């Protein structure tokens, strides 16, 4: 599908997963800042959905704010509209499942029963709050992981690991593994098309579709083995094995004002929630029950 590339400017670059627009605020962030973002948001999400009743119960408002922040950052990452919307949509059934799981298996937490248009449900409002908070919390984690993969490249990971004191070869192998996510996705797409071309005319039920999914593992694994063998050859041919002193070349980069600002916001969030144990729901005086 590709024709010769010879552009004077370039607006998009490939990331671990698909591509991102150059010059967006998220693209400019240091990879360690993005990692910190994932860890802090995940930790705060866990804190928020695990808040005990004494502290006001699950912090639904806080979780909604975190989710809004991550979705805004995802939108700002400049990935294509189709990808952005499809990833948002793809996560919905998972999160709905998560919500139902918690609601159904924790139905009798203390508190009044939920009332839906006059029909009293056998589930307490507290149970629904817990279920909603879990779904929102995991959404924050999923989307922040997407954010990282959609806006990060191998040289950034390598640079960050080198700055943290890792050896070049260790950093390279971790980056290589992540880099191959993209290749694997392309392989899977080709295999899926080849499978569909021989899908015949029989209406496929869910069970058969699952079996078909299993069949794709045969060519996928074979292609991964073939690729890894050739990569081994490529590494050998470029002197990887005998390399003793490796030069770091344009891999590391410094922190910008945007990085420091992000760290400041994350630190404030940590202090407010993890250290002081406050809840945004309580702060804003929102009462759901």
């Amino acid at each position, binding site marked *: 599908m590709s024709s010769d590339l010879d552009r004077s400017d370039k607006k998009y670059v490939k990331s671990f997963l698909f591509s991102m627009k150059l010059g967006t605020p998220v693209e400019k962030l240091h990879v360690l800042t993005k990692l910190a973002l994932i860890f802090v948001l995940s930790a705060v999400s866990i804190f928020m959905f695990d808040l005990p009743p004494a502290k006001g119960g699950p912090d639904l408002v806080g979780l909604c704010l975190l989710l809004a922040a991550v979705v805004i950052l995802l939108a700002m990452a400049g990935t294509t509209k189709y990808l952005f919307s499809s990833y948002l949509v793809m996560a919905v059934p998972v999160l709905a499942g998560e919500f139902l799981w918690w609601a159904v298996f924790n139905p009798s937490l203390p508190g009044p029963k939920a009332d839906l248009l006059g029909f009293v449900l056998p589930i307490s409002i507290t149970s629904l709050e817990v279920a909603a908070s879990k779904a929102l919390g995991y959404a924050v984690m999923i989307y922040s992981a997407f954010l990282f993969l959609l806006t990060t490249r191998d040289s950034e990971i390598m640079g960050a690991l080198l700055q943290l004191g890792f050896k070049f070869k260790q950093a390279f192998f971790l980056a290589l593994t992540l880099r191959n996510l993209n290749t694997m996705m392309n*392989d899977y797409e080709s295999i899926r098309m080849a499978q569909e071309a021989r899908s015949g005319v029989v*209406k496929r039920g869910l069970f058969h579709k699952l079996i078909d999914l299993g069949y794709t593992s045969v060519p996928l694994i074979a292609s991964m083995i073939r690729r890894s063998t050739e990569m081994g050859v490529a590494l050998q041919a*470029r*002197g990887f094995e*005998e390399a003793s002193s490796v030069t770091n070349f344009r*891999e590391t980069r410094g922190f910008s004002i945007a990085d420091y600002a992000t760290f400041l916001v994350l630190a404030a969030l940590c202090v407010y929630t993890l250290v002081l144990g406050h809840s945004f729901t309580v702060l804003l005086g929102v009462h759901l029950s």
Partner: protein
Amino acid sequence: MRAIEVNDLWWRYPSYEGLETDYVLKGISFSVDRGEFFAVVGPSGAGKTTLCYALTGIIPTIFKIPQELLPSHMKGQVSVMGEDPSRRRRARVGLLLQDPENQFLRMDLLHEVSFGMQMMGLPQDEIEKRAKEALEIVGLGSLWHIADKVHPSELSGGQKQRVAIASFLAMTPDVLILDEPTSDLDPAGKLSVIQAIDEVHKEHDLTLVLVEHNPDVVLKFADRVLVLDEGRQVMIGSTADVYSRVDELSKHGIYLPEVSRMAWATGITYGGRVPFTVEEMERALSSAKLYPELPSTQETEDNESAVEVNALNFWYEDGTHALRGIDLKLQRQAFVALIGQNGSGKTTLARVVAGIYKKYEGTVRVMGHDLNDKRVRGVIHGLVGYVFQNPDNQIFTRSVHDEVAYGLRNMGLEEEEVEERIRQSLSEVGLLEKLDEDPMFLGKGEKRRLGLASVMAMRPPIIIVDEPTTGQDFRMSQDIMRLLALLNSRGTTVIAITHDMTLVAEYAKQVVAMAGGRVIYTGSTRDFFSNPANVSRAGVMAPGSVQLSYAMRRQEPGFPVLMNVAEWEAAIGREQMLTGESELNKA
């Protein structure tokens, strides 16, 4: 000075099943001088890639064979620039494999080209200087300012190969080994990449070892050639000496220039050997009066269309406008070649027609059914069979039998019919005796034939084959094309996407040429090749037979376009019959 010396080299791969495997290289001995352009040719399974691995020290190093067991796997000596390549201290040998995609290690051009230099521990400014120079040498200097932003997968096939070459050139190797580096490229891309390599070879006194099927490339660029078959060295010598031995090369399944094949068949010589180029053949025929006769063309009675496309537009998710307002009508039972340069839209069009790409603008009718109709989409795979380019990506089961059965069972056929169809299709592709084998362990050509058998068994009225002969040796290519011709003679509409114009001229009845997402020609193959402007607009290279016809036209304007060896053989044969022992051989 000798750059490479190989003396009685034997090698067999370690077996992980406890069984001893056969030797893959059997007593290979040759040497390559410094600055020489040395070619290696041979059919699939000849041991060409294994030899490349031995020259770079990848074997035995990569297998970590214990020292005491090494003699049972490797015998003989290999020396590159005076040292054992498996114990080299400096990276002096570059190896470029067939698929550059699998060799890319980084996510941007700059780091890809720099990787080897980073391993060498060069200073940063030296890396930057050399990377820039290497990209300029391979003609990609214009990408330098965005080199840190361009992912290798965003490049065209030719550009990828150039990047892979640049990454080795930057390391200033003494020897560069290229294992079929251009097999996936269109003819123009292939020529430009080899040209770039040759320029570097001449300017930097680089020793080159090139594994290549294409005889025109070998004859044009290489000084000497080594012929391998089944691990044995069967010929070595200057390219002219080796390619003069047409009979022997044919026996080993080596590709020969078309003009050499036609000269061999008719006994024509040039300077005491068969001609290698169109120019040589033209000179050999200059004093002759030829009697070309075109085969009679059969009008197709069935005017119903197999495929009808109107105002078709297609965009990829990243916004690339791949098909731009295509109108096309292909008749039933046609043998169509879909041709054009890499990126012209051939595969995209074929995938829309096969119902694989579903989001498009316009109308596509297949065997009279509109693909916009959801009910048709449910049955499209019974109407169009699609054989993908990479056979490894379409093998889903662990036995040849089950592989063919996979599509048939999806069609809901009775087991009895499934078995009957499996046997018939495997017998037609010559794989019936491999019924119970694991397809993953079949050879490259066998996998390709299995892919075709799996689709053939479903008996769709239309079969689309994507690059059926890429990376195949001469015999395999001919086998596959004959099989497609057989299917076509039985009434199947065959659409073959290919870069091989020799096969197009020999087998296809109709050509659809594409450029820049548009169809620029549709009509008979002979009409396509009869007008050199068509060939040039499609960015393809006319096969030797056609080029020779163009050359003859310069002397005799009404000379018809003869498209293949058989037609030339007939024309020259008639001349010989009419003039007795002709004057051709005096040329």
